[in-house]
């Protein structure tokens, strides 16, 4: 049996996660956007990807500290170059994993 308090927690968490995912799609997909906003949204993906990945590469620990010699960052350089050269998502994932596995073993 699942306790009702736990179920309430899951419903609460589910709702507050779902609403921000749904609201923009519901409202923005049915109207014309002002040009400046469209330009802004056009830059959001590159900004988000960069903001997601960079701190993962060069910071670690809790509280976080800067560490430029983490294997994550060392491996990111050849992985990035591989992606730039081949533009293959699957290939980059496999190459990154292999390099990281080697780095963890030998560094």
């Amino acid at each position, binding site marked *: 049996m699942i306790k009702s308090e736990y179920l309430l927690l899951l419903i*609460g968490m589910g709702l507050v996660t779902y609403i*921000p*995912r749904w609201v923009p799609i519901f409202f*923005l997909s049915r109207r014309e956007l002002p040009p400046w906003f469209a330009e802004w949204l056009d830059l959001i993906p590159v900004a988000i990807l*960069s903001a*997601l*990945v960079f701190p993962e590469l060069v910071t670690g620990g809790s509280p976080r500290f800067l560490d430029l010699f983490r294997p994550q960052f060392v491996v990111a350089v050849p992985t990035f170059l591989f992606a730039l050269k081949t533009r293959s998502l699957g290939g980059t994932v496999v190459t*990154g*994993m292999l390099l*990281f596995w080697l780095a963890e073993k030998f560094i």
Partner: protein
Amino acid sequence: MVNNSKPAAEPLAATFIFREGIKAGWPICLGYFPIGLAFGVLAQQAGLHPVEIGLMSLLVFAGSSQFIAVSMLSGGASVLPIVLTTFVVNLRHLLMSSSLAVYLRHVHKTWTALFSYGVTDESFAVNLTRFRDSNWDWRQALVVNQTANLAWIASSIVGAYSGQFIPAGAFGIDYALIAMFLCLLVFQLRGRLYVITAIVSGLLAVLLALFVPGNSYIVLASVLAATFGVVCRRKDIIND
């Protein structure tokens, strides 16, 4: 012979939609598996039943906030603080859905409601790249979301039952998502303005991550960097 002059209007075969969706989504699944396993193990150690763990992955489907919820639960936190924390941690999806919305015009709202459920950092990045660079169909995007969702739920349940038997960090699998994000970032670098926005956002994110606890640095850095980019473009400081 059938006239194929308007391929966009041709209905896509279901097998094609599934095949393409899975082809685009497999790196996400690969990346989710170790994280889902780890989540399952931790949640089980915190005293949750595998059914409860699977249900959380099904109803919430947001990795980092699930980890936080489990650690708060084992710390004895009550419902409201956990829900509020979840809200803040997942608010970043607001930006991702805004970017995706442009590509979901004319899609029925029942389908967009289902699609919204599957918007994660990873599915957003994969789908947005495809929408932009190819004739990506919303149904293929939906397959990406749901495949990733299945991988997430399955791996968290597997973790709940057996995670402690699988060695951590095997085959560098911990790096799958980082490598995927790096490659998707490369795809987004479509001109000077994009490169500069990426650098500004990355530097800001690192700086903020060092001084602000939690993950608010993602939203703050991206909003600031995108605004900076638009201002530069509008004032002709940088042309694309």
